[in-house]
């Protein structure tokens, strides 16, 4: 600690500047939070914190999925539809027995986690196909996943039409399913409302931890960074580039499956347009968090910071009563500024 203090005291202006640039995104978040607190001090409450964390949870899981693909110099436009697929599958299998418009009228009650596996099966299947197409035919992921996005919309519609519930959204969730999105692990009273640690937050934290371990501690994770940083180098070093690429898409598929399952629970229903446009939020959060489009660079903590930042901005701006359209403008500016600052990190001054 003393050493650290000493270092701070002896830093030159240039080093200060570097430190600021390195941590630009965290400073931006801090500045926004402070502004909001000054405008409305009630923002500083456990209740708000819980809301922000809850709203960030599913987004984070999805962002971590596409993050791996971005590290491979790619992107995934089909993320939103993947969420939709997983949501529709999960919701259709988890309706209350006494609900009127059931998708499968004769289905017995299934264990609440089983449909998640079914959803994951679906998203992994399609995501792996994207990965294979990218690796085998060297098609740019933007195009491969653009195609997949369109295909998936068709698949979701076909599945949706198979149900007995007609054209209405798949609702009436089983109470265990609902509990996943509303339940809390520990609960206590604070400032008149009850707060605690929501299951969603716990799930997102666990997923982040697992992904962190995979990215940093396993051969697969290191290979992912290598393939993303320089595929030729990886290839001549004996890395299975195709296998690694497909695995990254499979991992993304797993996360999309989990995300879609949770999203349907959170919203309380699912229909073919569930998840529409989510890919842009997820990708924006990643790049704002320093997961670089040029590949080979990115951390789990970056994805977390990026997602939190966006949730805080939208939640906070709504909290202080800023109109939605202004929010869009601010968000857009932040994306570009954050990325510009981030690029600066990698520029060496000469």
């Amino acid at each position, binding site marked *: 600690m003393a050493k650290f203090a000493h270092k701070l005291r002896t830093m030159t202006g240039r080093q200060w500047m570097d430190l600021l640039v390195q941590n630009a995104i965290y400073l931006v978040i801090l500045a926004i939070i402070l502004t909001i607190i000054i405008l409305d001090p009630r923002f500083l409450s456990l209740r708000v914190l819980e809301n922000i964390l809850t709203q960030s949870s599913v987004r984070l899981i999805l962002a971590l999925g596409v993050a791996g693909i971005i590290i491979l110099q790619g992107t995934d436009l089909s993320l939103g539809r993947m969420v939709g697929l997983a949501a529709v599958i999960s919701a259709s299998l988890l309706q209350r027995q006494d609900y009127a418009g059931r998708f499968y009228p004769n289905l017995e009650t299934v264990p609440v986690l089983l449909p998640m596996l079914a959803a994951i099966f679906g998203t992994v299947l399609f995501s792996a196909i994207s990965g294979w197409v990218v690796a085998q035919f060297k098609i740019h992921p933007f195009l491969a996943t653009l195609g997949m996005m369109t295909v998936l919309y068709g698949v979701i519609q076909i599945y949706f039409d198979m149900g007995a519930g007609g054209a209405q959204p798949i609702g009436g969730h089983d109470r265990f399913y609902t509990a996943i999105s509303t339940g809390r692990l520990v609960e206590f009273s604070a400032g008149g409302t009850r707060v605690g640690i929501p299951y969603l937050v716990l799930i997102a934290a666990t997923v982040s931890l697992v992904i962190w371990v995979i990215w940093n501690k396993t051969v697969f994770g290191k290979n992912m960074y290598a393939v993303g*940083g*320089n595929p030729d180098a*990886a290839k001549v*070093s*004996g890395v299975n580039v195709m296998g690694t690429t497909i695995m990254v898409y499979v991992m993304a598929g797993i996360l999309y499956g989990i995300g879609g399952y949770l999203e349907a629970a959170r919203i309380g229903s699912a229909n073919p347009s569930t998840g529409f446009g989510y890919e842009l939020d997820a990708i924006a959060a990643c790049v704002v968090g320093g997961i670089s489009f040029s590949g*080979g*660079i990115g951390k789990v903590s970056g994805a977390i910071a990026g997602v939190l930042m966006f949730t805080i901005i939208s939640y906070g701006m709504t909290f202080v009563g800023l109109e939605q359209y202004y929010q869009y403008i601010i968000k857009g500016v932040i994306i570009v500024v954050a990325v510009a600052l981030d690029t600066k990190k990698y520029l060496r001054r*000469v």
Partner: protein
Amino acid sequence: MHDYLLGIESLSKSFSGIKVLDNVHLQVRSGTVHSLMGENGAGKSTMMKCLFGIYRQDSGRFFLEGEEFNFIDPKHALENGVSMVHQELNQVTQRTISDNIWLGRYPRKGFFVDEKAMYRASRELFARLGIHLDPNLKLDALSVSQRQMVEIAKAVSYEAKIIVLDEPTSSLTDNEVRMLFDIIRVLRSHGVGIIYISHKMDEIFEVSDEVTVLRDGQYIGTEAIENLDMERIVNMMVGRDLGHRFPPRTNVPGEIHMKVSKITTKYSPIIRDVSFELRRGEILGISGLVGAGRTELVESLFGARTLESGEIYIDGRKINNSTAQKSIGNRFALLTEERRSTGLYPVADITFNSTIANVKSYRGAIGLLDDKSMTRDTETQIDNMRIKTPSYKEQIRDLSGGNQQKVIIGRWLLTDPDILLLDEPTRGIDVGAKFEIYQLIINLAREGKSVIMVSSEMPELIGITNRIMVMSNGRMAGIVETEKTNQTEIFNLAMKYLINSTEAEI
């Protein structure tokens, strides 16, 4: 027992119908260094890539210790005792040194990568090879020569029976080259077979036991080094005698063209208080050890580095070269040392790559580009520098490494600059083409252009420059008349500002 460790027999390979290797052979004995020589584009790298499983040959057979094999991919080759340092640095610069060295074979502990073992193994490897680098450093924090050493260490670490070194010294410092040769000698004494590719003749004579020469994808012959001299090798490579190595210096330096006064850079590596004058039509060489600030000096003149203080005058008028754009406007041109990574548009064709810096001058009447004159100029360059390519439409990434360099050199010559800054202009260029490049430089000087040329090759500095400026530890140690100097004087100047001599090492 079989005689040879590695045998390559009747290897042929074509790219889109063009024969690049035609029935070539190579036989490497264990415990020897076998040099593979040939002009740029002769097929050396292609031959090695076929061996290593990067390319699939059209026909031909490989034998390792008498047993036939055919590697399907690099992984297969690495696992079976063949490792390779590639001509282009294939590294993941965003990751650490040890991540790069053990890429493809990370040590595991249960389900996880054993970082400790990896770090330890890297330390041991570096200690064994005499490299002083922390394996946890990220590669993009290293100099190109340090990255090259990492690549060499990696190739050695496979404990391979055959190690291919494709132009490993292209960006090494003298010290590092000596380290590499020590490493090679140790490997040789352990019975490893080494295939060595380089365009530097003195290296060939220093390390080789045998030499095989290719010309235009044809096998020319194999000889023991004792039976060869430089003329003979050049003759085998080019198919004729080359005569002189350097063209006559027909340029005549005139009045003062550029005056540089007390240039000091703002950020490290620091250049301090460099002042000199350059005459019109003069070729000024810059010598010094790597790390002495030679590259930094020319970059500072060109505005690629921020100056703390100092002035540049052209014809007595003070100019502002604070950005590359401004200096191009002031008719400066800089051929960078790292031209492959900073200057190449890999998927664009040769015409694009050679005219891009000068594209404005091809605008016709209504502002559209004049394709015909662009093609014509490109074809002139291809002829002048003997660039080996099927046509000007070829993508530049399909050219051999040396030929890519020639295109980039041509690009800067086409800009018709007044002051030409050349950083290692002949690196990776074969002997025949080197002569052409020297001739081009001298011709430009004769036309009244002034040239500053950084080079690590002493013979070339002595061969074509008028004066040589020696840098030492970021400062100018002196300027000498080329006619009146010798290698010892230059070497002593290069050491002038070194606190102790070990500083020149990595």
